[in-house]
């Protein structure tokens, strides 16, 4: 019955004890395991690959496949029609009311050639052909551009031939030429498609730690084991740190599995079809992990905070699901307002990770300054969030179940 004397060495083990117990207990929970190590981290790379494949193939299909276009008055301009046919357009029989058909989305576009076309052509007057389409239809853009390009090319060629026939150089009619020099590298084009990647990584982290965060606060209180736990001679902040470490361990493992998944899946994305390059190897994975390190702690703290506020497990689930909306913000903001990244933006949690990961995908790498800003800004936020949650852990209300 001697009271055990506590050496400092033994006391330091409390955090580790809590951590190991939480990890062991949750490794025995099939639902947590499935969501943290299977569905959560593997669903995103799979979904991403399907989405990218679908997009790429659809774009490629449109460019190569024969384009069916209903033509009204095809008989008035046989040469133009031939030129279109060479460009892959397959003229279709005219429709009665092309405007209505386009509005009803029965057809993407229609071409109308007036009966005055042959007369005007012979006189050498400018003639007009009409393209009927609906620009609010996302699907119509590529076909419209294709047909427009074909007609304009035909017109330029005919114009040049007329000038030559009159003994003039075709160059006189073209005083200024625009030479387009696109500075986009294959990687920077990839960024457009891969804008969603940073969000997927944060989502994986979030889902990986979610069940634990709820279970270790709201769940433990609901099962009435928090009160006996707090009766032990361990300060509550140490109990919280042990639990926080367990949540972080699960969400980090989740992210690692996800990154491995992406590096495998990355090989199946047909980026070479678009002349793009993808960097999803070990270096990419390590950099993402580094960028996300403070985010792991920040998310785990926020989840614990929100879950500790809730009165029951179910209420905690609702709140944490609402919190899941938070990481989508940078992606949405950048999509709506494509602003030029400034240095300070890297220090904003979530936004910094977003920009940093896009830099990685772009292949340019994250500069040391941006890396420091990103890690520093998020680390400060993580410490603040953990501090607030720790305060909440000290409240009397937290321990009382019912």
């Amino acid at each position: 019955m001697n009271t055990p004397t506590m050496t400092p060495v033994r006391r330091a083990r409390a955090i580790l004890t809590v951590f190991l117990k939480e990890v062991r207990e949750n490794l025995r929970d099939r639902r947590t395991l499935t969501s943290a190590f299977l569905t959560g981290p593997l669903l995103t790379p799979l979904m991403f690959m399907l989405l990218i494949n679908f997009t790429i193939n659809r774009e490629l299909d449109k460019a190569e496949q024969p384009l069916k276009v209903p033509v009204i008055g095809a008989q008035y301009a046989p040469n133009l029609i031939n030129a279109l046919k060479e460009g892959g357009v397959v003229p279709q029989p005219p429709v009665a009311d092309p405007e209505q058909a386009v509005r009803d989305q029965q057809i993407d576009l229609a071409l109308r050639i007036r009966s005055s076309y042959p007369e005007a052509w012979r006189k050498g007057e400018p003639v007009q052909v009409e393209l009927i389409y609906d620009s609010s239809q996302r699907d119509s853009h590529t076909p419209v551009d294709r047909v427009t390009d074909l007609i304009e090319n035909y017109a330029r060629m005919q114009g040049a031939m007329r000038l030559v026939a009159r003994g003039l150089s075709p160059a006189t009619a073209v005083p200024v030429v625009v030479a387009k020099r696109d500075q986009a590298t294959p990687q920077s084009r990839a960024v457009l498609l891969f804008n969603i990647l940073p969000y997927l990584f944060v989502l994986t982290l979030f889902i990986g730690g979610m069940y634990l965060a709820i279970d270790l606060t709201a769940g433990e209180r609901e099962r009435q084991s928090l009160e006996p736990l707090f009766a032990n001679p361990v300060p509550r902040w140490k109990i919280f740190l042990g639990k926080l470490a367990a949540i972080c361990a699960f969400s980090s493992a989740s992210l690692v599995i996800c990154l491995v998944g992406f590096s495998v899946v990355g090989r199946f994305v047909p980026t070479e079809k678009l002349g793009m390059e993808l960097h999803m190897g070990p270096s990419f994975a390590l950099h993402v992990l580094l960028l996300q390190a403070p985010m792991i702690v920040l998310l785990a703290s926020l989840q614990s905070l929100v879950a500790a506020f809730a009165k029951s497990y179910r209420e905690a689930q609702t709140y944490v699901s609402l919190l899941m909306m938070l990481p989508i913000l940078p992606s949405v903001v950048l999509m709506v307002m494509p602003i030029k990244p400034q240095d300070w933006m890297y220090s904003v949690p979530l936004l910094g990770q977003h920009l940093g990961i896009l830099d990685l995908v772009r292949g340019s790498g994250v500069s040391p300054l941006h890396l420091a800003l990103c890690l520093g800004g998020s680390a400060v936020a993580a410490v603040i969030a953990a501090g607030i949650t720790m305060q909440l852990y000290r409240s009397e209300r937290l321990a009382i179940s019912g």
Partner: protein
Amino acid sequence: MIEVKDLHKAFGAVKAVDGVTFAARDGQITGLLGPNGAGKTTTLRMLYTLMKPDRGQVLVDGIDAAVDPLAVRRRLGVLPDARGLYKRLTARENIDYFARLQGLPEDELRTRREALVTALDMADIADRRTEGFSQGQRVKTAIARALIHDPRNVILDEPTNGLDVMATRALREFMRNLKAEGRCVLFSSHIMQEVGALCDRIVVIARGRVVADATPDELRAQTGESNLEEAFVKLIGSDEGLAA
């Protein structure tokens, strides 16, 4: 030895504990008797430092709970009102977790744990996961983890709640053994017969105040009733919330 001096605790306008003073001595069983909602659980929660009293002092073996709560918790074995176990861990793992949080070295942990498993007659369930345990098996596990660090003072909040006759008898025997070992045993109950049969000293609480603090014999003499049950009803003013 547990000493409580003039404890006060209010939740909003409700005065849950309104000036409670008593002492529980070593080698004795002290019963905290009162109807449901009298303030027993709140008083005990302040004893094991889960809550801070608005006013008053708690001393455990002479250590002030407000000054050194960790030292107080080290000297207490607590079976709280909430006695949830970790259902994905076995009974032994549940006990080990608390032992490590108490800072017990591994060899001492094994000796103490096996002694408790024998004393509480739970060898057959010790390696089963606690999910699906009966109420009695749960209480045994909760008591074992509460006493793993060999505390001098033991606090039990309504320990026989929900137990069947056999389990209740076994638990009472266990409490007598704790007393025989010289420990200070403090337990709360709203069951008069239990308190009368076990206690060396009875503290009767009603509406957040101590209305009596005496031995069973003194109580009978004080109230002029030969029957303890009548004595309690007379003290509390009604028999509401009490059980025979």
